[in-house]
């Protein structure tokens, strides 16, 4: 249901190619699409309106550079302004205070406070070489204090021993006293989740703030949050004064418009991003990545990093060499299929790719999904070693055997073989042309290297379509697939 902004703008601007400066009418038309894209990305309505006004003003009269289309120009302006609004990427926990420095973690229920407390504490300990004490002030949620204690044990960060019958406020005071007495640099205070309209609970956390005078008060919020992000952020900011935001669950496929909303209403920086349940899944905030995501252009940088992480470079290079020599056998195809699965499956990949709207529709139409990838892998796995090396051996009776073994049909096997053949042919051609390089190869062509992304995202919006000579490995019905023989970054 979500079309990316580039798809939408493509439609708007198809009519007005080759024009000089952006005219008011064109900009207005484009901004209607930008507005929808932002709303679908969960940016709060008020924030969207303010943003559109600002960008409209800046865009009208802007010269369209010869090398880009008006649509791409508009996307660039939108993208740049989004980044500007999302703020700088260098903020980290401020420790300029007399130790023990108190850090207060607040937010709605289930947002990720306790987990983020442990993540930040671990980073302060391991990277910044601070002596950190964590204390859970959550006397509401069952086993909340036990949760923090276990996380402390896992990370080797000290936690305040529990005591019965204490209030949140008294635990906070006890934690600060222990911090002073035992020479801690930082005391992290994890609080119970609270809805921002519960006056009693908001008063409680305000009292805690007054008692400990935190150097940082961080709002921990879920990247999947909808329009409520503004209300919650505003209420917390008004009542207790925030100094930063921690955005959790950025490992999901939410577009993350909440980041923009919260940043806009509070003005405080996003200080860290949660990207998983494990303690080390904490990253710095990169506005350009989030901007790309909000616009539905995909997190290309993230994709490249993930690819580099999950795909063994040597394996990829071995495949590339074989492909160029035209020796790409079914075992190699299996290896490719498995790499796609490793990268979080098609869902994971697609979530990070730009211009996915059209391709997604085509793939759905062709019945391509993670299941079909698994079925293809199962087919190859049911073949003998000899058959994999030399698919020509597969006569009708062998095909029936393989179909039985993999729970598929002979037709599916024929499809797979045909596809393998086409891949081989492609590869040979490409070998002659000197091979595909970089990310372009991964995505089947058409993609510039990732660093160019923020500069001209619109150019990247087109994924190869059937017949254009690219595509995912092993996808039936998508014309002549390429593959990913080579990766640009080693890590």
């Amino acid at each position: 249901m979500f079309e990316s902004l580039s798809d939408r703008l493509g439609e708007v601007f198809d009519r007005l190619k080759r024009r000089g400066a952006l005219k008011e009418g064109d900009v207005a038309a484009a901004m209607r699409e930008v507005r929808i894209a932002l709303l679908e990305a969960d940016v709060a309505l008020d924030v969207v309106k303010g943003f559109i006004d600002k960008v409209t003003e800046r865009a009208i009269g802007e010269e369209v550079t010869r090398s880009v289309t008006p649509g791409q120009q508009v996307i660039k302006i939108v993208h740049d302004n989004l980044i500007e609004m999302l703020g700088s990427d260098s903020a980290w926990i401020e420790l300029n205070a007399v130790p023990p420095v108190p850090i207060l973690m607040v937010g709605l229920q289930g947002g990720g406070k306790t987990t983020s407390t442990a993540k930040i504490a671990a980073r302060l300990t391991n990277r910044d070489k601070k002596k950190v004490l964590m204390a859970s002030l959550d006397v509401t949620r069952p086993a909340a204090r036990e949760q923090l204690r276990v996380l402390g044990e896992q990370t080797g960060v000290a936690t305040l021993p529990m005591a019965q019958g204490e209030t949140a406020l008294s635990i906070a005071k006890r934690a600060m006293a222990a911090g002073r007495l035992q020479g801690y640099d930082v005391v992290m205070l994890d609080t119970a989740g609270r809805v921002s309209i519960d006056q009693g609970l908001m008063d409680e956390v305000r009292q805690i703030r007054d008692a400990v005078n935190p150097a940082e008060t961080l709002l921990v919020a879920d990247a999947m949050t909808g329009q409520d992000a503004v209300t919650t952020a505003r209420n917390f900011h008004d009542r207790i004064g925030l100094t930063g935001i921690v955005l959790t669950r950025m490992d999901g496929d939410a577009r993350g418009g909440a980041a923009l909303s919260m940043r806009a209403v509070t003005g405080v920086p996003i200080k860290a991003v949660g990207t998983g349940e494990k303690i080390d899944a904490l990253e710095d905030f990169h506005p350009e990545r989030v901007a790309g995501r909000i616009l539905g252009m995909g997190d290309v940088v993230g994709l490249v990093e993930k690819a580099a992480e999950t795909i063994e470079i040597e394996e990829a290079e071995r495949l590339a060499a074989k492909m160029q020599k035209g020796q790409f056998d079914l075992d190699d195809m299996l290896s490719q299929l498995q790499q796609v699965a490793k990268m979080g499956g098609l869902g994971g990949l697609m979530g990070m790719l730009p211009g996915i709207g059209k391709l997604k529709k085509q793939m759905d139409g062709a019945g391509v999904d993670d299941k079909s990838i698994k079925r293809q892998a199962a087919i190859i796995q049911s073949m003998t070693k000899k058959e994999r090396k030399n698919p020509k051996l597969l006569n009708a009776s062998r095909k029936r055997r393989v179909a039985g073994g993999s729970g598929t049909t002979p037709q599916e096997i024929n499809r797979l073989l045909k596809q393998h053949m086409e891949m081989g042919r492609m590869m040979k051609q490409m070998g002659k042309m000197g091979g595909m390089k970089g990310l372009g190869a991964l995505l089947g062509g058409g993609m510039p290297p990732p660093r160019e992304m923020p500069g001209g995202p619109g150019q990247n919006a087109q994924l190869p379509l059937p017949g254009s000579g690219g595509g995912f490995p092993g996808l039936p019905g998508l014309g002549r697939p390429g593959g990913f023989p080579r990766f640009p970054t080693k890590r």
Partner: protein
Amino acid sequence: MSAEQQEPERRGWFQRLKSGLSRTSDKLAGGITALFTKRKLDTKTLQQLEDLLIASDLGVATAAKLTANLAHEKFDKEVTDEEVREAFAADIARILEPVARTLKIDGANRPHVVLVCGVNGSGKTTTIGKLAQQWKAEGKTVWLAAGDTFRAAAIEQLQVWGERAGVPVIARPQGSDPAALAFDSLSQAREAGADVLVIDTAGRLQNRAELMDELAKIVRVIKKQVPDAPHDCLLVLDGTVGQNAHNQVKVFRKMVNVSGLIVTKLDGSARGGVVVALAEDFALPVHAVGVGEQPDDLRPFEARAFARGLMGLE
């Protein structure tokens, strides 16, 4: 905050839901009031109305559709704020009516197996605690299975809920295989002749293929023992969620055949409006809503009340 403090004031569930919802819809309703005293329904006003629906997470498409309906009936006519709200509420209630269905425990199943899944932190474990309490009070024998063997203290959390409700919790140490635990729990609950077995699962984001596979495996393993189990598979949605809810429902439904939804945290400032769009797109039953952290803070989902609450109507 805590049960102890709120216990004396036990208002009717409708009262509580309404006060929760009306707080959440203050802005929406207020916005509509500001737009109208009595004036002509023109294009500009319609745009503003559509915006207000979007601000409740109904989504661009559903908001446009509802606004178009209104325009069809009332364009260029003099309308009051009240009329507009009534019209929207009626439309929304019509969409929600078919999905407002309570969760039915089938006595023929011994036990009736309920698998509970969802993204991280949406309220799965708490909802299970509330359901256990409710079913226990109806005289059913309820067993819980601590299937979140991943998150720190997830098992202890469910055990506390089990104690509160006075029902047994089957658990294994952290790090155990959740599918094996589910299988064992089912045999134990069958042996004990329990009426209901509720299986908790670890939170997982729907784009994590390997975690979704793990969930599918839990279902497969359960089916080995009782082919038509789990009899219900509940997806718990956080009421503050935005448009990502669509992906959640889509993927979870595909992987484990979700039979119904529960929406939590509607006691906060979020409006849960995405439920309206979900009802249109997926038509999955919405069984209940969470309106707090206490055991009795689970209410049946009531289409008309929800719709009117969303519009700030009595």
